[in-house]
């Protein structure tokens, strides 16, 4: 249709789409799905971190982790607000998370088992997330683009802090070194999975790239991540758990093993180590908190009514 052509032309010209602008229903739906998943990931992602907030090794590390968790809840808030500009309420998409209609990043279905995992999450998981997110600062939807600018700034801060935490372990006692290596062993492949399936198997991609909702392909980003991360691991004296990993002089990048995509689809289907517990934790939080939300709402209504009555 003409509207669609005009819409695509605006995107091609690098213009931002704003909430009141006309947009194709698929564009709206795809954005809601993507932003919702991103928001949910911020929220669910605080669970493996919360698992170590109460066991952080120093007051300083505990403070850093609390600040990070606070930021992530904030990111969730920006993104839910940005999604609301597309006509879906925060409660609606929250409920879609809770009943399994919407996903969150599968990486959070892996457990955090030792303190170095918190470092690994910052270093690898936030690192991979940033690689996915930096291009989204240029995404076509204005509110999303602006949210991503704020988020990316904080994420790269988190990544540096994560790297610093795992560095302290890698440079520490033998037990600490073992923690760091154990964390890398468990988080390496799941991090590679964060870029999604190989381009050859990826759905949704072409249209999303035309709409500038997605900017790079999965494989491009994965390669970039490996190329950035391997030297960092080497600097830490840690071994990437991939026997096939080696620098390729011809391509000027690393050759590496693909993750187990069978495992990836298992986790997506709900069979990851923590899927059930994560969703149960979020559902419990939501259900247990219903009286609080209701109470706050009721009080706000009373106050508003009293104000009107007084006028």
């Amino acid at each position, binding site marked *: 249709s003409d509207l669609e052509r005009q819409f695509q032309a605006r995107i091609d010209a690098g213009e931002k789409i704003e909430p009141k602008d006309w947009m194709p229903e698929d564009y709206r739906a795809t954005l809601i799905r993507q932003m919702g998943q991103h928001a949910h990931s911020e*929220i*669910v992602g*605080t*669970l493996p*971190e*919360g698992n170590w*907030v*109460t*066991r*952080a*090794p*120093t*007051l*300083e*590390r*505990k*403070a850093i982790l*609390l*600040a990070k*968790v*606070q930021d992530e*809840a*904030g990111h*969730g*808030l920006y993104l*839910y607000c940005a999604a609301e500009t597309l006509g879906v309420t*925060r409660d609606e998409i929250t409920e879609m998370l809770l009943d399994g209609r919407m996903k969150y990043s599968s990486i959070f279905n892996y457990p955090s088992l030792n*303190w170095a995992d918190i470092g690994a999450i910052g270093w690898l998981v936030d690192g991979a997330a940033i690689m996915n997110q930096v291009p989204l600062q240029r995404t076509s939807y204005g509110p999303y683009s602006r949210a991503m600018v704020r988020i990316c700034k904080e994420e790269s801060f988190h990544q540096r802090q994560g790297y610093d*935490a795992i560095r*302290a*372990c890698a*440079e*520490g*006692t033998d*037990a*600490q070194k073992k923690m760091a290596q154990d964390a890398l062993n468990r988080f390496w492949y799941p991090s590679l999975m964060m870029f999604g399936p190989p381009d050859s198997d990826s759905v949704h991609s072409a249209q999303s790239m035309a709409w500038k909702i997605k900017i790079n392909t999965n494989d491009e980003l994965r390669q970039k991540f490996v190329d950035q991360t391997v030297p960092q691991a080497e600097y830490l004296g840690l071994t990437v758990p991939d026997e096939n990993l080696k620098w390729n002089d011809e391509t000027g990048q690393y050759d590496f093993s693909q993750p187990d995509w069978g495992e990836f689809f298992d986790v997506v289907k709900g069979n990851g180590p923590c899927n059930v517990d994560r969703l149960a*934790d*979020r559902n*419990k*939080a*939501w259900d*247990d*908190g*219903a*009286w*609080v*939300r*209701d*109470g*706050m*709402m*009721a*009080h*706000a209504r*009373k106050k508003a009514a009293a104000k009107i009555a007084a006028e």
Partner: protein
Amino acid sequence: MTQQEALFQFLLRMGDNTLILGHRTSEWCGVAPVLEEDIALANTALDFIGQTQFWLGYAGEVEGKGQDADRLAFHRDAWDFRNLLLCEMPIGDFGQTIMRQFLFDAWHSIYIARLLKSSDPRVAEIAEKASKEVAYHLERSADTVVALGDGTEESHSRMQKALDYLYPYVGEMFLADDVDAAMVSAGIAPDPAALRDEYDALVQKVLDEATLTVPGNRFAQKGGKNGAMHTEHLGHLLCSMQWLQRVYPDGNW
């Protein structure tokens, strides 16, 4: 008890209150009733951990045995903690958490205000740094107590239940002992007993607005601030809080 020992105990009390309550608050990570509360609770915990670093850091200096704030936080057993029992009570439901926060914030704000004029410049300096945070905590917890007290029937009844459960732990804030006497005579800190009227007025005002009833029974549970008898809850809290440091005492984090 020397003046130095008394000052050390006083600083432990301040630092243990914020350490233990900060820890409790951090237990909410990821599971608060609404996203804004996730943010607020993480922020409160963060403020408390920051204040702990100051109080326990100074405590370690005063003690003079080479213990820093981390060592004091993570290598004492329950009997050496000096926090108010109120701070170590479990988080319970959100109502219990926010009611405890309010009961503590009200006392904290009054107490910290006095410490601004402490004769000990380090104490005054820490109080100065903490005072804005503490004022904000009180504003927020009081507002939330009012909203939930004067919300739905259920939220009202949960808040009243929380108040009834926690009120026996209020009295300990105002019990004065030798440590307090030493601090008063040195002009370092106020007499706790002298603050009760101001506290009662503040609390009464907020709880009235929240349509909640202050319990008549003023029986005070005690034993936290002097370490004589903590609750069973503290030991379990330490199991988590000190796990890593106890298992890997040589770690460099």
